[in-house]
Structure formats: structure tokens, C-alpha cells
């Protein structure tokens, strides 16, 4: 009996409408009753997804040239600064950049408005050169007037993430949401057994060039993400405990949907952006069958005190408890709250499942796999 299948063989099945495609939640349920060998024999592809706040996101825009032309230096979109040091009419608009003085409106909001087709106010200035004589531009743009709008997110789809609590006596506002004092709540932010990198924890099938669903349209894994760390300890199920691998993603923002790209403002932290990502994991062998059948009880993460300032680890919990609404840390029962939308992640995993089952989405062999790393550098204050 053949114990392996290739991506080419899977694509052949997709072409013939014969591939068996299930979501990671469906396979996690199967995994409670079937062996990896049985899952391997029944399932070809597993779809995974996440829809959470991912700060490290943004778009490259090319505005098109005016007559006479300008080499834009200072650029704002709806009063939100964009980086213009990449000449001449290119800019990078980061999701967390904010408009002054309204720090509740930022890059993510502009990106969402552009995706939805709305007009956005572009203001740019420059010193003027012989070849780019214009010094000022003020006009309205939208996604049909600009040339490119390429979303390039340097750090998305974190493989696992900490649970945030607050042991102090003061309410704390963070990118992990509002943290009530005296361990009043515990906030977490992954889609658990549905999460992409938890279904292929050793990144055997996800690498450079992997085709994905990104913001609701086709996108690609461009590189490993920043702060990529494969050196984290793993639990008995091979799952890294706490933040570990990440992905840098790229896709055509003009084709994206505002259902899967949503601007967000976290109180007294700032602007962020919910990004929808769905990744197919091919079941190439029994090892991958075992990986994709991982369930929430087997995925663990650290509970970190975000209040104290030194990010002390207070305990370890599994996602089954986190989704149950209550965890126990140091003997104390704490209410839990998610920040990442499992409902939307389910929707994305199901869209990708249908796209593959119905022969519209084919899997890719990674052009290169990611190198293992042993840890991250800290920024040393040397002055």
C-alpha cells in the first residue's frame, strides 16, 4: 500500500474533481477516532484559516504619474502618513500608522476604504527636481485610479501566541485587548486547531511560494515572517508552546474583500488590522495526517502577565480550556476571551475547501522551505 502522495498527484485529483478536502476542524474531530494511517487514506487536503488582528501589515501603492511629474517625499492618505522613500510615486502605507490628531483612525482604515472602492485624499509634497519639477499634489484616488495596491505583510499568521493576563491592580490596555486587574480576564488570539501553522508545525509543506487565500483572494507566502523562531520548545504533540514561526504574505489588495480585511482600534494601544488567511495543507504522508488531526486539547500556550512589565510566565493552558470560557492559573479561575474570530476563520477554511474541491484552486510545491532558527536577537542598548 502506498504510504505517500505528491502534490502533483493531489492536483491531478483536484482537476478530476476527486480530491477529498476537509477543514482542519473536521479532521481534528476525525483524529479522535481514527489513526493517522486511516486519515491519510481518506483525506488529500486539509484547509486551515485564521482571522485575527495582525499589526505587521500594509500595502505598497503606485499612484501613477502626474503631468508634470513629482517625486513624492512626504505623503499622506486621508491624513495618515505613508512612507515615500521609495520614489517616485510609490508608497508603503502601514496598517498601524495613525492620522494626527485622530489616533483612532489609521492606515488599516485607509486600506479598508481603498479595498471597498471609496475615494481617499492623497496629499504629497516634494522639493522638486529637474526631472520631477512638481512640488505638490492634492487629489482623490481610489483603487481604480491607482496602478498597483499590493498587500505585503511582513509578519502574519503567528504559529501559536501567548495568553495575556494582568496581575496588577490597574486596568491595562494592550494589543491583546483590555486586561482587567487582578487576573480579571485572560485574552488569547489564535484559531486553535484551525490555525495554519499549527497544522504543519514543522513547516514541511508551507514555504516560499505557497499559494494561499489572502484577504479573500489568491495570495502567496513571500518569505518567512519577521521574528520567525523555530527554536521554541514543543509539547508532546510537537506543537510549539508560545509565539514561534510567522509568515510574510503578499497579494493583490485590489482583489481583496473587506469581509476579510478589517480595520481595528484597540483602546489606548492603537490601530491594527484583522487579516484573513487560509492555507491548504496537503496530506502527503501519515506524519502530516497526524499533524493535521491535532485538536485544541493538544495545543498549549503560555499565560503571560502583560501587567507587570517583565512578561512573567504564569502557567500553561490548552486551547480546549481557552475556548471553554474559563482557565485555571495558579489555582485561580479566570474568564477567557478570544481576539481572533473563529467564526470568520471557519468561513475562510470552508471557502478554500470549496475552491479546491470544485477545481478552482490548485496546490503549490514550495519553491524553498524555511531554514530552522534557534532564537531571536534582542535590541541591545549600546549607548
Amino acid at each position, binding site marked *: 500500500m502506498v504510504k505517500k502522495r505528491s502534490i502533483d498527484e493531489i492536483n491531478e485529483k483536484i482537476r478530476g474533481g476527486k480530491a477529498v478536502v476537509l477543514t482542519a476542524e473536521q479532521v481534528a474531530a476525525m483524529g479522535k477516532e481514527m489513526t493517522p494511517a486511516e486519515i491519510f487514506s481518506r483525506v488529500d487536503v486539509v484547509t486551515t484559516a485564521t482571522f485575527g488582528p495582525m499589526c505587521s501589515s500594509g500595502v505598497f501603492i503606485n499612484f501613477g504619474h502626474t503631468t508634470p511629474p513629482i517625486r513624492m517625499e512626504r505623503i499622506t492618505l486621508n491624513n495618515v502618513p505613508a512612507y515615500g522613500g521609495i520614489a517616485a510615486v510609490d508608497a508603503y502605507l502601514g496598517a498601524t500608522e495613525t492620522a494626527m490628531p485622530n489616533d483612532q483612525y489609521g492606515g488599516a482604515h485607509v486600506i479598508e476604504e481603498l479595498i471597498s472602492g471609496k475615494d481617499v485624499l492623497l496629499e504629497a509634497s516634494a522639493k522638486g527636481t529637474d526631472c520631477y519639477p512638481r512640488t505638490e499634489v492634492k487629489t482623490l484616488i481610489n483603487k481604480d485610479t491607482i496602478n498597483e495596491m499590493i498587500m505585503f505583510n511582513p509578519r502574519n499568521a503567528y504559529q501559536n501566541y501567548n495568553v495575556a493576563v494582568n496581575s496588577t491592580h490597574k486596568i491595562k490596555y494592550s494589543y491583546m485587548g483590555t486586561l482587567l486587574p487582578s487576573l480579571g480576564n485572560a485574552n488569547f488570539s489564535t484559531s486553535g486547531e484551525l490555525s495554519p501553522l499549527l497544522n504543519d508545525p514543522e513547516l514541511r509543506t508551507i514555504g516560499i511560494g505557497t499559494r494561499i487565500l489572502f484577504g479573500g483572494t489568491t495570495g502567496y507566502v513571500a518569505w518567512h515572517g519577521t521574528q520567525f523562531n523555530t527554536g521554541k520548545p514543543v509539547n508532546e504533540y510537537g506543537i510549539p508552546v508560545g509565539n514561534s514561526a510567522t509568515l510574510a504574505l503578499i497579494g493583490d489588495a485590489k482583489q481583496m474583500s473587506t469581509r476579510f480585511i478589517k480595520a481595528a482600534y484597540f*483602546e489606548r494601544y492603537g490601530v491594527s488590522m484583522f487579516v484573513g488567511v487560509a492555507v491548504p495543507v496537503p496530506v502527503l504522508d501519515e506524519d502530516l495526517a497526524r499533524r493535521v488531526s491535532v485538536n485544541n486539547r493538544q495545543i498549549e500556550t503560555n499565560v503571560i502577565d502583560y501587567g507587570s512589565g517583565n512578561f512573567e510566565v504564569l502557567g500553561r493552558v490548552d486551547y480546549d480550556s481557552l475556548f471553554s470560557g474559563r482557565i485555571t492559573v495558579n489555582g485561580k479561575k479566570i474568564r477567557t476571551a478570544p481576539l481572533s474570530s473563529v467564526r470568520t476563520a471557519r468561513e475562510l477554511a470552508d471557502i478554500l475547501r470549496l475552491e479546491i474541491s470544485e477545481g478552482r484552486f490548485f496546490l503549490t510545491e514550495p519553491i524553498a522551505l524555511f531554514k530552522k532558527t534557534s532564537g531571536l536577537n534582542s535590541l541591545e542598548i549600546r549607548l
Partner: protein
Amino acid sequence: MASKRFVLTFPPDATGQPITYNLIKKFDIMINIVKADVSPGKIGHLVIEMTAPARVLKEGMEYIKQQDIQCDPIEKKITYREDLCIHCGACTAVCFAGALTMRRDNAELLFEPEKCVVCELCLKACPLKLFSIDIG
């Protein structure tokens, strides 16, 4: 006789005054504790229903405020744009009253207005700013 619900917010350093005892003994107010989450060293919340003649209720409120405890009548109502909700769950983190919870089966937000004590924490906690106060 009038019945009214109030949210009492205790500062972390609240004195150990027996508030509900005094409201009953000194003012003859009928007290029904709807929800209590008060412990030393942290901001506490007590939701009570007080029943007494309107004049006595006013005196009771004055007494509570004199103890440096915030006393807000529940007259307002929280509403949210359900159609725009992405069901992330960030609002459930702050809802000590348990009016906002995540459903385990379909992973959707469940809002039970009858449990809401109008603490207004969800207004700030929602990353999409979908909650608002209906003054009525």
C-alpha cells in the same frame, strides 16, 4: 414605592463600610443584589435593585456617593451593530456581567441585554467600535 437598578463601582481602596447593611438599616430600602464582584485591592462592581419611596432612594444614593462609591442608575441601554460584528470576542473580555459571551457551537457573539449592567466597558473594548449607548 419605586424600584430602580444601580451599578455601584468601588475604587480599589474602598473603605470597608457595610454599604448594603446601612442602606437597609438606616434608610429602610429593600435591596436585591443582582450581581456582585467586589474584592479588596481591585475595582469592584455591585449591581443592586433598590425599592423604596423616591425620596428615600435619593437619600440612599447620596449616602453611597458620600462613601466615594460611584452610583449609576441603569436607565441607559447598550446597543451594537450586529450586522457589522466580526465575532472576534474582544468585548467579552470586559463584560463582567456576562451579557456578552461567545457561543461554543457556532463561535458567534451572544448578547443578552437583560444581563447588561451598562458599565460601558464594551464601548472601548470593541476594536470596530460597534457598541453605543441608547439613552432611551
